[in-house]
Structure formats: structure tokens, C-alpha cells
């Protein structure tokens, strides 16, 4: 009963009075893709999802689903299923009635609803809870019930608004993996809103990174991690995120705290830049940048060092068995291709 699930946003603007929540958003989602909308809170990712769902109308721009303009189509006519952050289960109905509700609204005959409900419940492993009310379920079970209600209809688009944020850490990791498998097995297009870069990195085929009402980068998690488009993205992706250090660029070298490092990134002449260095890309080597070890966070297999390089704070990830002592002075360097350059004025990549 569903189409392909291809989505296009064309110059979507959303104004809340004078405040621009979205300042002209463009992206395309391919059929069957797991697409994440990633960004800090207030960046416009949830507004984007609500506009896609039809719960909010854009101030300007067009929304296309499967090449059809749905900008002014009602939410209920868009053939979209959604899992809300609060799950929004109907408290007066049993689990089975909750899952059956979208099918009832689609006026499916009763003989078809019952097996479809069982099937959806089995897929998320709650088929033994069908007669309970949502209030009698644990948080994880409620979340599964919301998932079942969303997948039962086999809609062409599957929207998820921070679906894991109300689960505890362990359950979140388990559910994350199951969610990915579920989406693959259903072959449905999924749009996933999250502020957790790790969730987006692990789940998404591609992602759009939102910063203050704009998309700053669209790409695969690997692409965004390897070549962040802006200082804001560089400081948002990765754990810990990229070090961002003011420096001076002179003919293929960057000068950080008086020390020269070779870089493959280039820009014109001599100028101030912001250098981006992944904590995992830094190496200890003789003749590098001098740094004092301020603090060691031991994570077991790796450790994160807080380094003081002549007043500049730099974080570095080192493998176990290679950890210096606190207060030691070490010398660090990075390969030329691991040095990213950003423009301090435009905050964009050079």
C-alpha cells in the first residue's frame, strides 16, 4: 500500500514570529535510506521532522515525497508513521488496540487487523504483552509498543523523534542495534532525529547536520567525521570532538604555540586560521609540539589526555600501555593529512 519513500526538501523556511527556526533547508533522502537529522537542541532538526510529518506547515518552500508536492497535504494523508520521543501511546487502550489503531483508521477488515497486529508485535518482541495497558509496561516495552504501532501500517516513511532518549544507557545500546536491523529488514525509509552524534554515526546511512536553523553538511557518517564542513560540526562530531586551536598559516605550515606543523591543506598566502586536530590523530614523537599532561581519563583500552600546550588546551587519545604520567611533559605531532584548516571569520572549512 506504500510507495517508495523518497523525500526532498526545497528551500524550507520556518518563522516563529521574527525568529527563523529554519533558514532555507534543502536535502534529499533516497528510498530505503536510514537518514539522521543531527544537531544540538534548537538547531531546527525537530522542526524539520514535524514539517515532513505535516504537523507544522513551513513558512516558505516545498516538501516533496515520491516526487509529489505534499506541502499542504494533511498529516493523516501523507502515509507516514512516526515514533514520538514520549511514545504518545494511548493510555486507555491495550497494547493490541494501540497497534491496531492505524489499521482501524485505514478501515482494514477485522480479519486482517488481528494477524497484522500479532506480526508487528512479534517483530519487536512484545507479542506476550498484547493485553496490557501502556501504564503496565516498562519504558523499554512502551518504546517497542510505539515502534510496533509505527511499523504495523507499512507506511512509506518512518519518522523517529529521539526514540531512544528516554531509555537507560544499556537498553539504549541494545535498542539501537535492533532498530537498525528492523529498518533493514523492513526496507523502509527512516528519518531519525537525534542530538546524540554517536547514535547518528552508528545508525545512519547518511546524515544532515543542523546548526542554528541551517544544514551545514550532508553526507555519510564517515564523510562527516573525516571532513567536517565547519568549526561547529568539527566541535560537535566525535567523542571527544576535534581540538580547535587558533594558529597561523604560513606556506604549507601551521604554527601552533610557536611550533611548526606540516599540513596538506592549503590556503592563500599567510593568514590566521583555526586548526582542527582529532584527538585520535595525534601522535607522541620527538621534536613535536611540547605539552604538559594535566589530566588523564583512563577508559580501559584507551585513555584521553588533557594537554596544556603553552596555554592552549588539547585533548589526545592514546592506546593503553602508552600512557604517560600526570605532570609529564611530552612532545606531540600529527600527520600533514590529519590537520584540518578552518576560517576563523566564516567558521567554514578552508
Amino acid at each position: 500500500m506504500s510507495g517508495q519513500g523518497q523525500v526532498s526538501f526545497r528551500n524550507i523556511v520556518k518563522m516563529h514570529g521574527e525568529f527563523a527556526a529554519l533558514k532555507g533547508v534543502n536535502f534529499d533522502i533516497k528510498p530505503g535510506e536510514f537518514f539522521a537529522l543531527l544537531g544540538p537542541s534548537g538547531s531546527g532538526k525537530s522542526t524539520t521532522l514535524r514539517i515532513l510529518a505535516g504537523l507544522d506547515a513551513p513558512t516558505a518552500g516545498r516538501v516533496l515525497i515520491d516526487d509529489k508536492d505534499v506541502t499542504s497535504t494533511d498529516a493523516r494523508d501523507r502515509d507516514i508513521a512516526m515514533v514520538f520521543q514520549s511514545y504518545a501511546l494511548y493510555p486507555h487502550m491495550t497494547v493490541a488496540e494501540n497497534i491496531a489503531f492505524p489499521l482501524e483508521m485505514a478501515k482494514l477488515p477485522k480479519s486482517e487487523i488481528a494477524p497484522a497486529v500479532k506480526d508487528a508485535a512479534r517483530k519487536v518482541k512484545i507479542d506476550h504483552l498484547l493485553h496490557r495497558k501502556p501504564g503496565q509496561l516498562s519504558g523499554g516495552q512502551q518504546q517497542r509498543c510505539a515502534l510496533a504501532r509505527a511499523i504495523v501500517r507499512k507506511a512509506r516513511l518512518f519518522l523517529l523523534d529521539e526514540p531512544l532518549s528516554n531509555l537507560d544507557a544499556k537498553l539504549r545500546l541494545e535498542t539501537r542495534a535492533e532498530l537498525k536491523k528492523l529498518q533493514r529488514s523492513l526496507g523502509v525509509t527512516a528519518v531519525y532525529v537525534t542530538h546524540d552524534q554517536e547514535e547518528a554515526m552508528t545508525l545512519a546511512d547518511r546524515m544532515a547536520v543542523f546548526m542554528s536553523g541551517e544544514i551545514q553538511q550532508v553526507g555519510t557518517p564517515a564523510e562527516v567525521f573525516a571532513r567536517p564542513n565547519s568549526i561547529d560540526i568539527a566541535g560537535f562530531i566525535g567523542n571527544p570532538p576535534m581540538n580547535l586551536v587558533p594558529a597561523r598559516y604560513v606556506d604549507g605550515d601551521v604554527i601552533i604555540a610557536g611550533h611548526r606543523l606540516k599540513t596538506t591543506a592549503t590556503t592563500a598566502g599567510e593568514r590566521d586560521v583555526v586548526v582542527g586536530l582529532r584527538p585520535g590523530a595525534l601522535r607522541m614523537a620527538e621534536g613535536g609540539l611540547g605539552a604538559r599532561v594535566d589530566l588523564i581519563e583512563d577508559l580501559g583500552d584507551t585513555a584521553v589526555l588533557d594537554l596544556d600546550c603553552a596555554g592552549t588546551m588539547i585533548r589526545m587519545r592514546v592506546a593503553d600501555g602508552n600512557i604517560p604520567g600526570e605532570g609529564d611533559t611530552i612532545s606531540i605531532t600529527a600527520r600533514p593529512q590529519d590537520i584540518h584548516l578552518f576560517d576563523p571569520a566564516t567558521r567554514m572549512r578552508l
Partner: protein
Amino acid sequence: MSAKRLRIIALLAISTVFLLAWAFPIVWSVLNSLKTDSDVLAYPPKLVFAPTLEAYRDVLFGSGSILPNLLSSVIISVGTTIVTMLMAVPAAYALARLRFRGKKFAGFYVLATQMLPPVGIIIPYFLVLRNIGWIDTYQGIILIYLSFSLPFAIWLLVSYFEDIPLEMEEAAYLDGASRLKTLWRIIIPQVRGGIAVTIVFVFLNAWNEFLFAVVLSGNTVRPVTVAMFNFVSVEQTLWAKLAAVSVLAMLPVVVLGVVAQKHIVKGLTVGAVKGGGRR
């Protein structure tokens, strides 16, 4: 320990005083309704007497039976309740959820009608009803009762509707439900408690109303609250019969109160807490 015990004793004493103050008129009415007229007027009051159901027999099956008046009260109260709820539920939902022009003003109007002193508008109401020929009719009294019960019911229901998360409704829309279907299948089942409380309050207000009824009713439509007055005349007051009718008129109120007690208390506090912080 002793301070705690003292507090409990003080609390009990105060509760007893209040309970007596509230219970006394009721107990007195019940006692009087079981007395003969001479026993009622005996001084000092007789606490021990031979109980009789004579007063009840007279007011129910005698020449001045109040059965037609009880029926009138039922028709007026049930009618008022049904019409009020049919209009108040959608209105409260709209005030709680929809954004429309004049919403603030509508919200204020709903409350403002509760502030008018009823005596001030009896005469205008009387004139209006007389001009359209609705004095001493069911539709006339129900219409006037609506002007009070409707704002009250809306005001009470809005806080219940506002308690339902908006996401619940949005989920229903995405599940393919229309707004009406969402209201009927998702929202109303969740405000059942509030609707029950509102029904009880509206019914009781209409059942107990006297001031408007005495002016706007007549010989055809006369609720029991007005009919009771027949037992008070210039020459004498028939205390036993008056008490018997009061007890009979009180019965539905007491029954409803006992049945819905839990809901009523909860409903009162919801109104109290939520009413102030309304958007």
C-alpha cells in the same frame, strides 16, 4: 509523643465541631420529617418520639402531591445536563487546543459570566422569556440554566483537556485519524473522569436551583425546590411535610455525592490548581 497526641485530640475536636455544624440541619430535617406536627412544635424539642411516615405519605400521595414537581425537577436537571455537556465538551476542547481569533476574549467571557450576581439579571431574563412566551416552560428554564451551567462546565473541562499531551493527538493524526475521530477515540476516553465530575456538578446545580425557578416557573412547570414553599404559608408552616419534601429532594443529591465522591474531590482540586495557571 504527647505533643503529637495533643495535636490529634485538637484535630478531632475541631473536626467534630465542623461535622456537627454540617450534619445538624440534615439530622434535624430527617428527625422532623418523621414527627407529627405537634411533636415538631413541642418545646423543649423531643428527641425521643414515636416516628411516623405520615408526612411522607401526605407529600407523596396526598392532595398536594409533590410527585409532579419531582418529575419537573428531573426533566429540568437532566435536560440541562445533557444540553450543557453536548455543547461544553466541544467548546472546552476548542478552548484548550485550537488557536483562533478572540480566544482570549472567549476565555474571559466564560469566567465573567460566573461573576454576575444572579439577582441582577432575574428581571431581564424574566422579560426576555415573557416576550418569547417561554415563561413556565421546560425550554425556558433549561435555557436560563444553560447560561450558568455552560460557562461553568467549559471552565471545569478545559483543565482536563489541557492535561492531555499534544503529542497524543499528533500521533492519532499520523495514524490516519481525523480531528473528530481523534476527539472521540483518543481524547474523550481520557477525560472521562472530568466529564463525570462536570455532569454531577451541572446536575446538582440545576437540581438545587431555587432563585430563578421561583421567578420563571409557574403552575405547569414547578420544580420541587419551589413546590416546597407550598408548605409555608401566612397562617402556618407545615414543618413535618416541609422536612419530608426536603429529605426527598436531598436524596438524589446524596446518592450522586456518595457515588461520585472520589471524582468530585479530584475534580475540585484539578480546577483549583489548573485554573490559575491557564494559558
